[in-house]
């Protein structure tokens, strides 16, 4: 796998985002986002639904062109890079989507093998062995020949993870790993993410709002709120934050309650937002 021209040593940044602005039509989704993600660490991007986490992730994956700003991933600014350069970066990253995004017409094994078949000249035997190694890492060896429709939610996430790590990526993106899973399966997946970081020395970016998972796996946390990075730091630093919004998230408080009910009712009747 080619190196896009960055240091892989701990201490350097795998991703540096500067002044990132993203608009969807007239709506501003992300404003002036600055974020550094250190190499070899697990960065959790947390925030409430609609805060802009997924848009930030899509920008980092090159799936959404930002309105302005830079996203430097492994030495390439993918906000301005040509498609060929973006693809060079993409060969060094793995992505596990929230719903798995497994190709429904292919078996689990075929899903996992796709990147190897497209980007390498490995022989069939080697591809099969590599597939089994990755499936074994995620405890999915028995599901090798199953179709995605035959998998449970947890199995789908594991299969998606096996597909994401088949090329031994430097960066692994994981969108909502615990969403829709029972606590036990979610805990297993959290442990798997930590194991991957330790054994494969990957930089892992997890987008989630599950507090239990966040404090179990995170080396660093970035809190996103209303399209801005509210705070970044270690789990201890975030816990110690005095910001009322962060404390609200950590204590699972509902969003700001309506104080003036009469005024709110008048707004609803008047059809105002």
């Amino acid at each position: 796998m080619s190196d896009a021209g960055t240091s892989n040593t701990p201490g350097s940044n795998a991703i540096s985002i500067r002044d990132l602005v993203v608009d969807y039509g007239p709506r501003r989704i992300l404003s002036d986002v600055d974020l550094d993600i250190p190499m070899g660490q697990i960065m959790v991007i947390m925030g409430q639904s609609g805060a802009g986490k997924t848009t930030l992730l899509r920008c980092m994956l090159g799936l959404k062109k930002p309105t302005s700003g830079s996203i430097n991933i492994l030495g390439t600014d993918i906000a301005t890079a040509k498609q060929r350069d973006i693809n060079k970066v993409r060969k060094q990253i793995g992505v596990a989507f929230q719903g798995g995004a497994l190709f429904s017409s292919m078996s689990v094994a075929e899903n996992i093998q796709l990147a190897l078949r497209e980007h390498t000249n490995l022989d069939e035997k080697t591809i099969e062995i590599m597939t089994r190694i990755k499936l074994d890492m995620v405890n999915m060896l028995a599901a090798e020949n199953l179709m995605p429709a035959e998998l449970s939610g947890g199995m789908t996430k594991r299969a998606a993870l096996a597909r994401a790590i088949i090329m031994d990526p430097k960066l692994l993106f994981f969108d909502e790993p615990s969403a829709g899973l029972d606590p036990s399966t979610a805990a297993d997946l959290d442990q798997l993410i930590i194991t991957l970081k330790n054994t494969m020395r990957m930089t892992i970016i997890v987008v989630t709002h599950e507090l239990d998972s966040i404090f179990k796996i995170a080396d660093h946390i970035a809190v996103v709120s209303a399209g801005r990075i509210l705070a970044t730091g270690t789990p201890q630093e975030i816990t110690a934050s005095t910001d009322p919004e962060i404390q609200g998230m950590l204590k699972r408080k509902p969003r700001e309650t309506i104080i003036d009910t009469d005024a709110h009712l008048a707004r609803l009747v008047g059809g105002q937002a």
Partner: protein
Amino acid sequence: MLNAIESLGANIIASLERTGRTCNLLLIVLWELLQPPYRLYPIIKQMYFIGARSLMLIVVSGVTIGMVLGLQFYNILERFGSVDLLGSGVALSVIRELGPVMTALMVVGRAGSSITAELGIMRITEQVDALECMAVSPHKFLIGPKLIAGLLSVPLLTAVFDFVALFGGYFVGVVMFGIGEGSYMNGMIDAVEWSDVRLGLVKSLIFGLLVTLICCSRGFYMHLTKAGSQGAEGVSSATTDAVVLSSITVLFSDFLIGALI
């Protein structure tokens, strides 16, 4: 009144955007297909889906339409005492017009709708995004094989349709109404010229490309339209749109090609 004009303008702009996207898609896919690696298996797989699995439908509809044509032509020609022209009438109608058009419409209904639904579902379930993130071109991986398969399958299916439709006409004329076999066959052979066969072939090639391209485009770009935010209902709506637009395009381009060639 102003709202109606605004709405009309918005619809025209949206249609132009969709047409532009479809043309752009064709150019991107053609460019990507020229880049290595070249793979035959996905094309064969799509030819099986678009071509082989449509075969029975084509055979049944071809025989039926041939028989209906035979029946109608016989009734008309009998009035003028010219039933010997039945073979040439059926052959020219099938080879020049009905073969390519009906085959394309059948392919739209059977395979085109599936193509749009498949790509639309892949789009809304992030499977297309997953391909992009794996640095695999979705244009080449998903659309390229479908486009080539459509381009090759529709002419082949048209040939099958033509053959069985001529047989249907033969059955009605010769077996049912007792026209001489030699008269039917000679009329057919004398009337059909190479230019008629060429016209049918050109039409089927163009229809194959248009139908596959429109159906692929509607599914692949579903996220850029209103249907993209409507989940399963959006897929259904995109599929219906693709079938309607493909059918109209086939009929209109049939007229255009007929007028130009």
